[in-house]
């Protein structure tokens, strides 16, 4: 199924990029503006396709974790370097600290990286200024990775809702802020498959902290809760 959905997207995005790059000659300014719309919506659609495919795989029980040994510091570093450009573009300070001497973990490194990147990406997306701080440590047999931001915060009644499908606090913000509205749902499921959980604390007007708690040694949980 993924092949069938992504193949046409290759045409849409490929030809659009080549048109925008002037491969077929210069375009009038208004056409260029329209093309930019096609391009950004095309990318948004691809993000949706990828997320919907991920989620449907999780729900069908077809997503299995590739458990392997990983270094938590490496996961944090990968996420930090991936998100750095995004943060810099918005003038947001991104910092990361990992406790010395954390043990080697066992889990699906690629998926855990995806989860942390989702949380950090959200934080950067939803704050306009200030900082995002990633901190990671080991505590009582679990890794605790916190993403703290100085953003607008999330009201108490919205905190449960944000983990549901296609629910951003303000649905009109999907267009404005980007994102598919599925990232947190997928993240929560992946963490639960590792036998862990995601928590959120927030004070409106001060900021939010998302915390991933996963066993250092994950065993695959068959049923995502």
């Amino acid at each position, binding site marked *: 199924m*993924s092949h069938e959905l*992504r193949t*046409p997207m290759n045409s849409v*995005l*490929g030809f659009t990029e*080549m048109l925008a*790059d002037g*491969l077929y000659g210069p375009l009038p300014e208004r056409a260029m503006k329209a093309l930019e719309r096609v391009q950004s919506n095309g990318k948004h659609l691809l993000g949706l396709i990828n997320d919907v495919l991920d989620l449907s795989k999780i729900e069908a029980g077809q997503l299995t974790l590739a458990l392997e040994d990983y270094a938590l510091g490496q996961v944090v570093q990968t996420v930090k370097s991936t998100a750095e450009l995004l943060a810099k573009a918005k003038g947001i300070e991104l910092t990361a600290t990992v406790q010395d001497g954390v043990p080697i973990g066992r889990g699906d490194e690629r998926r855990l990286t995806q989860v942390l990147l989702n949380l950090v990406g959200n934080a950067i997306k939803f704050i306009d200024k200030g900082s995002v701080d990633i901190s990671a440590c080991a505590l009582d047999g679990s890794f605790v990775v916190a993403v703290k931001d100085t953003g607008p915060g999330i009201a108490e009644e919205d905190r449960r809702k944000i983990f549901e499908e296609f629910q951003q606090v303000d649905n009109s913000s999907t267009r404005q802020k980007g994102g598919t509205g599925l990232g947190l749902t997928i993240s929560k499921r992946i963490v639960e498959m590792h036998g862990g959980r995601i928590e959120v604390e927030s004070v409106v007007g001060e900021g939010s902290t998302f915390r991933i708690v996963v066993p250092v040694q994950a065993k695959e949980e068959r049923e995502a809760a």
Partner: protein
Amino acid sequence: MTRRILLVEDTEDNREIVRDLMDSVGYKLLEAHDGAAGLTMATEHRPDLILMDIQLPVMDGYEVTRRIKADPALWHIPIIAVTSYVLSGAEEKTRQAGCDGYVAKPFSPCQLLAKINQFVP
């Protein structure tokens, strides 16, 4: 000398993207529509580089790659897998088959070109 790139790809739209892209930088593009034709053209034309789709009629991209890499006359030709299999392990599988590089679909034409130029500067 003009670079010659062989594209093994069964979808016309995707061939057209690569054709236009290669055209823009003055590379000559050879095209095969299925795996078996890809192997024949690689043998006959000895291109400078091969772009290999994986899901192909007649013979899949893994098999074509294995055969090319087992041929002492052809094994030196760099092969870049271009595939929409983003499942974990797909990239590893193309490497095990002998591919030298990997680009996931949907690809950005500009990034594909950069990847090609890594192998044929």
